[in-house]
């Protein structure tokens, strides 16, 4: 059964690695999560979390229109996140069971508690900004959301990495930084799309920094993963991640060079948002691909010693 590849008789695309498997069947079960719901949530959670940080800083520096726009986008993104998470449950009616226990060993439990605090804060921040009522409450909510935002944006990396999925667990050191960078790029993109160009200097700078950080962590992750990095380069994941890189770099370059002009700023912002989404869907697809092929489970475990 050396390197046997399933029963459908498909051809291997790469030279076969020397490893044994049981009729080419996966050793672990791939996540049953829907990509739209969960990769979509990774993206939206990042957009919301990093957006709250940029919103608070914008408010602090007197960029009121950008601050309001980002607060609204964060509240909308976290609402859609909650909907996606509940929709993905096998028993959506039991979503409140998530708050039945407080369990530090479960990133999903910690995430549920985090969202249950962050969600309302971000909602209050958006509502007060739009209506202009209760400014003090609004400021407190904005500050709270900005403090929790970075956690919302990065804990999802731990959620993915704390599984037996080789492409995720193998990159458990790099994934949080990748998610943080991708979230910052998305929020900067949203600021460019929704805020006036006169207020966009920080967003342009954030876009450049995030694109650089994303490129660096991406490299580091692939280096660490060794042969499992194939799953980030090939198939659907490879296409998505190449697209993500192009969009993010183009968006950042556009933001830095042409970001003072409204249409160019909006286009760059959209590219950054799309790039961030492609990154999350790409990482998700790489995880599924690495779980479906026994090679990625067996060979790294064999090489350990």
């Amino acid at each position, binding site marked *: *059964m050396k390197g046997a590849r399933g*029963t459908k008789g498909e051809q291997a695309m790469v030279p076969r690695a020397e490893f044994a*498997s*049981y*009729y080419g*069947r*996966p*050793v672990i*079960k*791939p996540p*049953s999560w829907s990509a739209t719901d969960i990769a979509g949530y990774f993206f939206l959670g990042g957009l919301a*979390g990093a957006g709250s*940080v*940029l919103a608070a*800083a914008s408010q602090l*520096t007197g960029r009121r229109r950008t601050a309001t726009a980002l607060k609204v986008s964060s509240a909308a993104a976290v609402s859609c996140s909650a909907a996606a998470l509940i929709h*993905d449950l*096998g*028993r959506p009616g039991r*979503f409140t*069971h*998530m708050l*039945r*226990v407080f*369990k*530090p*060993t*479960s990133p*999903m*439990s910690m995430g*549920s508690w985090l969202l249950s605090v962050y969600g309302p804060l971000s909602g209050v921040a958006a509502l007060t900004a739009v209506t202009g009522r209760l400014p003090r409450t609004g400021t407190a909510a904005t500050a709270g959301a900005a403090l929790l*935002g*970075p*956690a919302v*944006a*990065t*804990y999802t990396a*731990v959620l993915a990495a*704390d*599984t*037996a999925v080789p492409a995720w*667990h193998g990159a*458990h*050191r790099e*994934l949080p930084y990748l*998610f943080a960078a991708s979230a*910052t790029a998305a929020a*900067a993109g949203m600021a460019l799309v929704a805020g006036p160009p006169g207020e966009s*200097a*920080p*967003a342009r*700078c*954030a876009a450049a*920094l*995030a694109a650089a*950080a994303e490129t660096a962590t991406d490299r580091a992750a692939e280096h660490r993963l060794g042969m499992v990095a194939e799953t980030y380069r090939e198939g659907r994941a490879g296409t998505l991640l190449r697209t993500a890189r192009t969009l993010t770099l183009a968006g950042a370059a556009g933001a830095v060079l042409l970001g003072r002009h409204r249409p160019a700023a909006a286009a760059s912002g959209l590219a950054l948002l799309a790039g961030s989404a492609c990154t999350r869907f790409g990482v998700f697809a790489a*995880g599924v691909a690495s779980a479906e092929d*026994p090679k990625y*489970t*067996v060979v790294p475990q064999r090489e350990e010693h």
Partner: protein
Amino acid sequence: MTETTGTTGTTGTTGTTGTAGTAGTAQAGDGRERVGFFTDTSVCIGCKACEVACKEWNAIPEDGLSLTGMSYDNTQALGASTWRHVAFIEQPARPAPEGRTQLPLADGPPEPPPADGEFRWLMSSDVCKHCTHAACLDVCPTGSLFRTEFGTVVVQEDICNGCGYCVPACPYGVIEQRPADGRVFKCTMCYDRLGAGQEPACAKACPTESIQFGPLDELRERAALRVDQLHEAGVSDARLYGHDPDDGVGGDGAFFLLLDEPEVYGLPPKPRVTTRDLPAMWKHAGAAALSLLGTAALSFVLPALARRKRTS
């Protein structure tokens, strides 16, 4: 159904006490001994009585009938509706150094070397490992998965909300969501039978005692003797799998005697409970969160500095 923080005290609600971030180690509660399975695949005859007994006792629904072409294995894998799975592997016979075949009869005369075209069967009844450090239990966000008083890992079906997190967390690919139902299911080691002082249905049905049930310590001793016996008989490939309390999952509650590498049977060679790395992962996530704050701060400071430089 009782609360998950029962007398066992090993479930996730008190999860910070486990070593290196794992939610709970397997210790039997109520002064009971931890029980388990020892599956000796060298005497498995591939009858699938365990699969049938398991399905019948636990009233597991039918989950598809198909001819796979994978030897006599049409069950394919463990899953939501398959809690025992018999693997069938056909291998070309390899002449052993003494000219014996791989599986000599205990006291018979030396057999002639195999002719070309002969092969050997490997058959093994796989099951949930009921890990000492169980990833499924660690990551379950609802407390549905819990450690029983017998040291086994069981899903409370009235609590599970089908989040599916345990599915990719399991290093053995055991637990799975049942599509029409949404919740996850896996072997309970016949929790109901254990409560009544009975052995699990699969062990009861096994006609060759390939599946042995009992106190884990006793099974480990018995397994060590059996592997020595096989080595003496010339079966040098015999090895135990999942018996070592120092392995990546702290040892399995259901362990095996195999006649080839674990991956040949579809088992991971060196499984690891990923929750062991959770403290490191939280640290990196914390650092990443701070770097996000730092990047944001820098993005506001740098343009301001640049503007000041230009105006001065």
